């Protein structure tokens, strides 16, 4: 009956649903965009890795700096498998990814890439090469800007960072140009007999350009490749400074709220840690304020829509006094009449909410496409515009609940109309 009543006054129902649709669309689009922006900003802070990530370096902690995000490491300390296992066993640790870092001499391609600003090949330079298990790249603060990561266990594929592009005098917007080119990497070794450094040279194909926060350095490679280079270099190191099996660990806590606790525990074990803990918390607070403001704007729109529903239903009650009287004359109780109007209000809210949430999702997808186009032009990784289930379900259910609340006054007024209305105005 409620559906039929809505259908009988289709024009008014369409306008009412439209008001709810626009409000729900605005609210859901704002929330989706805000959520995506939040993800993007926080992702930038953690370089695409998990926000609950903690970097552990092969050094003792500096007691004066344990509460800062990026403390200065203390004395070098061996970080071996036993230490990794101890850290892995700590409460609050979800996973631990081992990192190996070793210096390499980098020989850029010769002849230089076509279109490079200077015609002469760039000079060789020394940088750190970091080895990671690329199969676990999802747990690491690595964002692929162009191409892909090296295949796990590959001995010929590497990825480079944006600073490699600077050595080649290429803007980061042209990152894709280095993908597929060859680079020569030389692991140095000091031969004490003649006091000369000799290199162990390998050729590798650059398969991707990445932004990373794993360790300093220009080259990311599968761990096996770096281990071989490290072993070569360590064999000539009389000081034993490069003797640590791991140069660092990337520890992921069970949630951002446990980062502080895990960092403290790792400090107790005896290693220096860093994490954008304070920065993320500060940014999260600012983003939360932005979300509140955006939600407020959407809610104002929804309240206006709710007033529209109330107005439309009050008009319906005025027009249907006789009909309501007839319903009572044939046996409807006050609560039966109330229920009919509440169902009408809820249906208007449901339809408006469903249409509005779908429209909001569409709008945010469109905005995402525009933003991604811009980001790609700037040589940055694209963002994924995802609609959280809570926003989708909440958009529809919230609109229905708001409409139900908006329909309460008209429904109550209808329920209280005297049954005598069935016989016309007295």
């Amino acid at each position, binding site marked *: 009956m409620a559906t039929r009543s809505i259908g009988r006054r289709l024009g008014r129902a369409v306008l009412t649903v439209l008001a709810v649709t626009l409000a729900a669309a605005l609210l859901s689009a704002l929330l989706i965009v805000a959520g995506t922006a939040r993800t993007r900003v926080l992702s930038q802070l953690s370089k695409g890795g998990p926000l609950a990530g903690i970097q552990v370096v092969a050094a003792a902690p500096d007691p004066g700096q344990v509460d800062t995000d990026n403390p200065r490491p203390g004395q070098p300390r061996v970080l071996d498998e036993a230490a990794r296992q101890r850290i892995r066993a700590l409460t609050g640790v979800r996973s631990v990814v081992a990192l190996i870092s070793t210096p390499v001499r980098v020989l850029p391609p010769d002849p230089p890439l076509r279109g490079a600003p200077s015609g002469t090949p760039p000079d060789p330079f020394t940088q750190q090469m970091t080895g990671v298990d690329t199969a676990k790249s999802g747990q690491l603060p690595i964002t692929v800007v162009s191409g892909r990561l090296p295949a796990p266990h590959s001995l010929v594929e590497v990825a480079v960072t944006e600073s490699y592009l600077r050595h080649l005098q290429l803007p980061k917007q042209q990152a894709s140009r280095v993908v597929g080119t060859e680079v020569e990497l030389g692991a140095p070794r000091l031969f004490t007999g003649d006091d000369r450094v000799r290199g162990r040279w390998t050729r590798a194909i650059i398969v991707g350009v990445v932004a990373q926060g794993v360790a300093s350095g220009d080259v990311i490679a599968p761990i096996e490749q770096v281990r071989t280079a490290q072993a070569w270099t360590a064999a000539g190191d009389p000081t034993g400074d490069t003797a640590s099996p791991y140069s660092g660990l990337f520890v992921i806590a069970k949630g951002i709220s446990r980062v502080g606790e895990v960092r403290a525990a790792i400090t107790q074990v005896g290693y220096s840690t860093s994490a954008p803990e304070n920065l993320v918390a500060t940014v999260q607070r600012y983003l939360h304020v932005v979300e509140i403001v955006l939600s407020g704007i959407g809610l104002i729109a929804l309240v206006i829509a709710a007033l529209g529903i109330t107005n439309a239903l009050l008009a319906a009650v005025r027009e249907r006094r006789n009909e309501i009287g007839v319903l*009572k004359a044939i046996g409807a109780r006050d609560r039966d009449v109330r229920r009919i109007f509440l169902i009408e209000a809820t249906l208007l809210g449901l339809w408006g909410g469903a249409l509005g949430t779908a429209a909001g999702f569409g709008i945010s997808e469109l905005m995402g496409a525009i933003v991604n186009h811009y980001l790609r032009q700037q040589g940055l990784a694209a963002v994924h515009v995802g609609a959280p289930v809570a926003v989708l379900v909440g958009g529809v259910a919230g609109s229905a609940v708001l409409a139900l609340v908006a329909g309460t006054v008209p429904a109550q007024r209808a329920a209280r109309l005297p049954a005598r209305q069935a016989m016309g105005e007295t």
Partner: protein
Amino acid sequence: MRVLSEATGLGVSVQGLTHIYAEHGNPLVVLDQLDLALRPAEHLAVTGRSGAGKSTLLAVLGGLERPQSGSVLVGDVDLARLDGDELAAYRRDLVGFVFQHYGLLGNLTALENIELAMTFTGLRTGPRRRRARELLDAVGLAERADHRPNALSGGEAQRVAIARALANQPRLVLADEPTGNLDDENTAHVLDLLASLPAQLGCTLVVVTHNHVVAARAARRCLLEHGRLVAVP
């Protein structure tokens, strides 16, 4: 019409009924110490000028308005003692209304309008629909079941309204100017239908009208004047 064969009419006893409307602060007495006694299955016509209080009397008898003073007994039900839900149940189970303007819901078909009266009794869809079809058939409108009120003539709409009034096997049928909007031919048809109710179905019938032709069909006639009923020979 066999669909109501088991219903039996209710006697009505009204004593000292007074009803006053406050018009801009001035009291308007429409019913003044009114007395009325009706036997079960009696057919009464109440006539009177416009504003005499005929519809108010009908509204009080049907539980659409509460008696302000005096007592109104329908069968053994004292209407003054019923609360809101009990009055709704009284209207649903014991009373059938026929209005001058038919009172059909424009967004429902003829069949659905009749069904609606049974919805509030909790009857399931199947039996409800079956009985609605029987009633439509009984008033000669089986082929108009799927038509909405705006597609029916005045006479047809009033016959649908009578079928709806009979849906819950009422024991008191109250008709307020049932032929007020009808032409002569439809008036005769509707009057035949109404007049047959007390004899065929055993329900008590009160018709309010200012039309003497309509009143003449009743077994008993009263004139409502100065707030009281006066028997008309």
